[in-house]
């Protein structure tokens, strides 16, 4: 019993470390330290758990821990940077499997009271859903499964059916805690749910799904904790569960999606539509754009008529100063016809007291465009339209433009997708490296400025 007290006191400390770790993980400056703290907590918890007096044989435990560690180390070292999200989903699946296995083990180890049985079956279901769902997500991310939403007719009905069946068999199991059959049926059903729920979600939404499944695996741990009366499992599980939900929500917002919308893809009517989209517009919020700005070393500002309309020049000057303080180089690329009168941009930028040295002509910036980390287009449209270069037959074909599209990242700030003075569409907005920040130029820039100050 003394041992138990010791273990639990260490658990309290481990829980505190987890909490600290998570807190630090939320801040770029301390994230790494946070991760290490949380790793330390895990290590301590594992070691102290091994001192549990109920443990009679260590052999298999050690073998599986060593094997697991080896696999973990190998996979995580070998993976390419680009493969990380897939790997995370794979780990998540494995974690779900572990939870499920724990639940089954508890179920087969002894006859359970109905309370514990219901908690265990919950852990089992969540673990299984996490497992199969994560595997599908992994498949989609690594393109083993088509990234497109996979939908079929009547799927909503099928899904409802699955859920009903799962509830039914779970209840049956709780009533007959000794029945292996019900356990197996529940497992199969839960695995199916995991597959069915993730399949109809598009590849682009996968990070959200993984985050949610991750939150689920926390809940599974939490449920296991209840079943085994293990405080640390409850605390750590609840932390992961709750923070996962919040994180999922934040990620949805950043992607301009609603959580409900993502989750219920499998429960929606199938709509087939045949509209050909020329490309995809990738909107981004000013808040998220900030992180790119923070990391950039050289930035080209391309102002246009919209900057004048929004009177965003003062805000831009402030952003420029902040970027410069952040050791980035900022220059302005002034297209000769930007605005609505010759020298329009000059008037504005002089008003904001932008140094003349920073104003470069089109011919000066175009040759070095590839070297800019960011080209930020502020309310300009025609003057950065690659159609003038590429699209013979366009009304502006042949007009020299600033080749913003050749910069590493392009941010376009404007209020809508509407066209500029010349009234022609702008393929720049659909390019891969372009992100649209919709909104009034002044407000958007002020927003980014605010991020710098936070």
């Amino acid at each position: 019993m003394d041992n138990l007290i010791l273990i639990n006191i260490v658990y309290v400390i481990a829980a505190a470390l987890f909490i600290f770790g998570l807190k630090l993980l939320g801040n770029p400056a301390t994230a790494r330290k946070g991760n290490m703290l949380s790793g330390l907590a895990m290590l301590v918890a594992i070691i102290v758990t091994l001192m549990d007096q109920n443990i009679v044989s260590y052999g298999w435990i050690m073998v599986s821990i060593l094997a697991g560690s080896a696999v973990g180390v190998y996979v995580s070292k070998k993976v390419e940077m680009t493969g990380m999200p897939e790997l995370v989903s794979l780990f998540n699946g494995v974690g779900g499997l572990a939870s499920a296995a724990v639940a089954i083990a508890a179920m087969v180890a002894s006859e359970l009271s109905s309370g514990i049985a219901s908690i265990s079956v919950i852990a089992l279901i969540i673990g299984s859903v996490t497992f199969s769902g994560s595997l599908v997500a992994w498949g989609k991310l690594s393109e083993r499964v088509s990234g497109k939403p996979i939908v079929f007719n009547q799927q909503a009905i099928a899904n409802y059916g699955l859920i009903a069946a799962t509830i039914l068999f779970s209840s049956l199991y709780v009533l007959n805690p000794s029945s292996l059959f019900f356990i197996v049926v529940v497992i199969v059903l839960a695995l199916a749910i995991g597959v069915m729920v993730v399949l109809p979600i598009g590849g682009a939404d996968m990070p959200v799904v993984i985050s949610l499944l991750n939150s689920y695996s926390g809940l599974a741990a939490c449920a296991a904790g209840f079943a085994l009366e293990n405080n640390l499992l409850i605390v750590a599980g609840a932390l992961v569960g709750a923070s996962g939900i919040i994180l999922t929500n934040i990620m949805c917002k950043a992607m301009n999606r609603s959580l409900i919308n993502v989750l219920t893809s499998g429960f929606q009517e199938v709509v087939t539509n045949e509209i050909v989209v020329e490309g995809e517009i990738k909107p981004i919020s000013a808040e998220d754009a900030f992180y790119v700005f923070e990391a950039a070393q050289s930035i080209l500002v391309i102002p246009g008529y919209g900057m004048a309309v929004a009177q965003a020049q003062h805000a831009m000057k402030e952003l420029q100063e902040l970027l410069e303080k952040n050791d980035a180089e900022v220059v302005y690329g002034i297209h000769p016809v930007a605005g609505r009168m010759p020298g329009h941009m000059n008037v504005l930028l002089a008003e904001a007291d932008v140094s003349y040295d920073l104003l470069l002509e089109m011919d000066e910036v175009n040759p070095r465009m590839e070297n800019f980390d960011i080209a930020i287009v502020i309310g300009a449209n025609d003057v950065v339209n690659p159609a003038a270069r590429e699209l013979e037959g366009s009304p502006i074909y042949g007009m020299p433009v600033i080749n913003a599209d050749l910069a590493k990242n392009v941010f376009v700030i404007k209020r809508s997708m509407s066209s500029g003075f010349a009234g022609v569409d702008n393929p720049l907005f659909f390019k891969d490296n372009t992100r649209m920040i919709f909104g009034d130029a002044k407000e958007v820039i002020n927003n980014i400025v605010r991020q710098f100050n936070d």
Partner: protein
Amino acid sequence: MIAIYLLFILMLAIFLGFELIQKVPATLHTPLMSGANAISGITILAAIVLAGNDSGTAATVLGVIAVFCATVNVVGGYLVTDRMLAMFKKK
């Protein structure tokens, strides 16, 4: 009564989880998810106890599987997270 304590603990932990992840920058979304995923490998504790108990071969086997899986999750999770975070280091 123990259930009550557990309930208290659950309630507090959930609140704390919400409070902690209030305003994370987008760059941290993936590492944070990955870090949290590693933490969710905490089931390893339960797995260890179950694998070590002697309550039937089935339970032990399942326990050992669980320990293996959870270890992969924990070890791999922390290392991957660390790798991601290492990239952020300020110039």
